[in-house]
């Protein structure tokens, strides 16, 4: 995959994660995006729908980050922080996703503000990882030019 293509896909994942964070905070109905059909499995629960969307986007993005790392081994080897970042994604991505899913499951069960806050925190971890990727990917592109 070309780096330029990653720049199209990964910002979408970031946007989904950041948007989900805002949607967890805002009262339902504030979003200007499409509404949920209340007959669906989410029963109109927008925060839960957005959290799931964000988790799935992050999962796909982590796969792409590892692919990017394999294609840019030279840059990764030359930059200690990039190497640490990639190692962190490789080692922790499954646990980050497990934690996010556990938090969404807890929210689905009780749907209280405390569970929502925990879920928000877990999604923020995913957001930080993707934002860090963007920094490194930008550096890779600059080095290539």
């Amino acid at each position: 995959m070309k780096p330029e293509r990653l720049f199209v896909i990964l910002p979408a994942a970031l946007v989904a994660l950041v948007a989900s964070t805002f949607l967890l905070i805002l009262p339902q109905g504030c979003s200007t995006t499409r509404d949920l059909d209340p007959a669906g499995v989410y029963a109109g629960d927008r925060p839960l729908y957005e959290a799931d969307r964000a988790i799935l986007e992050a999962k796909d993005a982590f796969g792409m980050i590892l692919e990017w790392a394999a294609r840019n081994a030279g840059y990764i080897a030359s930059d200690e922080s990039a190497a640490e970042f990639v190692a962190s994604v490789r080692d922790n991505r499954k646990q980050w996703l497990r934690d996010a899913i556990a938090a969404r499951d807890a929210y689905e069960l009780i749907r209280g503000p405390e569970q929502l806050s925990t879920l928000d925190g877990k999604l923020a971890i995913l957001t930080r990882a993707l934002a860090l990727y963007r920094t490194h990917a930008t550096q890779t592109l600059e080095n290539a030019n």
Partner: protein
Amino acid sequence: MDPLQLIAAVDAALTTVEHLSKMVARAKAEGLITVEEQSEQKARIDALREELAD
């Protein structure tokens, strides 16, 4: 209010109204997130949960 200020204020209001109108039209055109779309996403989350449990 001088005429120029009035025109600027009207322009600003028009821009706002046009923007809101477009947003409403887009929301109507896009419709609801369907039952099928929701089920598909939920199925992917359930599959990911199982995958991570392995």
